């Protein structure tokens, strides 16, 4: 085996310490799961590998099929001169949902109503099962909001600002500071978080705006045009970050855009509105997301001098679809087995097979990208400097 427990951390054979994710240890499901495992077979978490291990299990635990995050029924908002929303009925489940429409389509109006800040003229809306008319304060406690316009005072640092906003969400001072540090790191702000925000680039400002929406660990975030003003690279980074808010943090997202097509890769579901009415509501059926690719790496043992080959044979025997060939010629790729995960059962199966063979599990990662993309050098964890984590490019 090549991982050892080190007071809450796991030490890999490369000398790296991998801290286990508290979120998951807190969940009874994962706790039970850990107890069943040999002590060296633990969950390895790293941001380098975007969605390591049991992310899907977490997602599944919160994704009960018929849960509704946002529901509107014949929702209308009429201003003296314009009808911003016209009898709009929506039913939005967990995950990332895009709300797309041209400027003036009613996207921002919708968000204000969902936050309980602007009363609907007609119809009703529920957020996280609470009525926006009567439970505005409770909704706002568990929802995060990122406005489309600038909202950052230039003369304070990101840290000071986000700490203050965390306290405004009701977090005690110590928790506000801890969560601010965590959240700013998650959105990719490091040393610059101590500098006044006036000197930040648009991309950095958008990240701070996202961080203040996430800092109180909401169940849902409403992001109003988060890619506005960003260049193509910044846009991709922001969209990747948004995807991670759901896959890694387990927070549902409603994200708006005036660009059709932009959100298709990021969202599980896209709603298109025009002139306040529903134009289209559809699931995005993207191969790279609907079928999950797992990357598994195991150690060798005395009985199985080539652990990878042994596992490959055993898994093939168990009926698992294995990808072959794509990893050739890339560093370290020969030890990595790519297979298709049909669901949680596949994770359990791999665990059991590895344990039966007496091998050590070095890693088991979920890979969401096109397989060809996964092994681009910059996407490979060994090549990244852990101190400078980049948000995932897609």
């Amino acid at each position, binding site marked *: 085996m090549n991982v050892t427990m080190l007071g809450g951390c796991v030490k890999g054979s490369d000398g790296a310490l991998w801290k286990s994710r508290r*979120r998951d240890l807190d969940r009874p499901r994962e706790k039970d799961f850990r107890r069943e495992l040999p002590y060296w077979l633990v969950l390895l978490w790293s941001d*380098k590998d975007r969605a390591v291990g049991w992310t899907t299990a977490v997602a599944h635990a919160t994704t009960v099929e018929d849960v509704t995050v946002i529901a509107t029924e014949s929702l209308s908002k009429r201003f003296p001169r314009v009808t911003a929303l016209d009898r709009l009925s929506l039913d939005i489940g967990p995950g990332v949902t895009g709300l797309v429409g041209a400027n003036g389509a009613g996207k921002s109006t919708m968000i204000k109503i969902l936050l309980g800040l602007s009363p609907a003229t007609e119809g009703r809306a529920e957020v996280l099962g609470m009525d926006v008319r009567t439970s505005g304060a409770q909704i706002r406690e568990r929802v995060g909001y990122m*406005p489309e316009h600038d909202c950052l005072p230039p003369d304070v640092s990101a840290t000071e600002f986000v700490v203050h906003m965390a306290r*405004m*969400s*009701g977090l005690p001072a110590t*928790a506000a500071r801890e969560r601010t540090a965590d959240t700013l790191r998650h959105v990719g702000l490091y040393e610059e978080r101590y500098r006044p925000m006036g000197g930040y680039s648009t991309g950095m400002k958008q990240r701070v705006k996202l961080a203040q929406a996430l800092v109180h660990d909401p169940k849902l975030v409403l992001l109003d045009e988060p890619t506005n003003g960003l260049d193509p690279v910044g846009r991709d980074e922001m969209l990747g970050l948004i995807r991670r808010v759901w896959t890694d943090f387990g927070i549902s997202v409603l994200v708006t855009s005036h660009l059709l097509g932009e959100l298709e890769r990021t969202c599980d579901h896209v709603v298109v509105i025009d002139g306040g009415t529903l134009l289209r509501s559809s699931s995005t059926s993207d191969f790279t997301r609907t079928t999950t690719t797992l990357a598994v790496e195991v150690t060798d043992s005395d009985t199985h001098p080539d652990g990878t080959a042994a596992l490959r044979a055993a898994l093939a025997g168990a009926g698992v679809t294995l990808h072959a060939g794509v990893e050739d010629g890339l560093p370290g790729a020969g030890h990595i087995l790519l297979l298709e995960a049909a669901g949680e059962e596949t994770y359990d199966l791999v665990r059991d097979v590895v344990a039966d063979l007496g091998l050590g599990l070095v890693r088991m990662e979920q890979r969401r990208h096109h397989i060809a993309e996964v092994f681009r050098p910059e996407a490979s964890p060994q090549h990244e400097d852990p101190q400078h984590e980049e948000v995932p490019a897609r």
Partner: protein
Amino acid sequence: MSTQTPQPSQAAPDTTRIHNIGYRSYDGPRLGRSYARRSLFSQSLRGAYGLGRSAKSKVLPMLLFGVMCVPALIIVAVAVVTKQTKLSIEYTQYAIFLQVVIGIFLASQAPQSVSRDLRFRTVPLYFSRPIERADYVLAKFGAMASALFLLTSVPLLILWIGSLLAKMDFGTQTQMFGQGLLSVALLSLLFGGIGLVMAALTPRRGFGVAAVIGALTISYGAVSTLQGIAYGTDNLGAISWLGLFSPITLIDGVQTAFLGAPSSFPGGEGPGAGTGAVYLLVVLALVAGSYGILMRRYRKVGL
């Protein structure tokens, strides 16, 4: 990396790197509206003295605080050394005497407290949280009034302690100190409200400063000029009614009528109890009105 033999040791710290990057959820307490309001109050109060802000922004409020206290310290020092039986200034006169300093403090700090949130459009971020309009306005109003109360009551405290050190009559001094505190409390509420309303009218900080200074000095200048004319033309009855039209003369009138203060009006023609009641009502109406205007102001800001 997968072919190594087991090494259950804790050595090799030099190659150790920490990958502690996973997301952690928050299961701790969420303290809600009243806590958020209190946090905003204390942040704004501290901010009025530049605490939690840049070193540069501490200079002016701290300097003004010092300027407020220095005369009190000198008066006390003189009283103790020369063994006076009476302070050379009344508690109730102190704030009137130093009204310019109070005005500068308000003009510099009220816009800092509210204009920035409007200008940088931070207000929607507050209202997207459990905190509501009334919480925001109460916290800002309370913080501004408290900052002014600190500025005006600490010198009185110095005077009172000094009077005791100089062995003046405890009962008399304490009573006058109490009256002084009541007076500056009323002044803090009135000035705080007026200052915030003026500052919240414009997102531009400079305009806010000018508006506050203008509201205080123009009204006072006009009132005292007219009072002077009334006094010169023997229209003594008009003097106390004219005092209703500027913040500082309002406070002066209330304390003349109810808090045993000598009037600063020309000829000492302060209001009696009857007119004084009108003064008090006007002050309370202005405080309530400021709150109402601020609430209206932020209704439009919403999101």
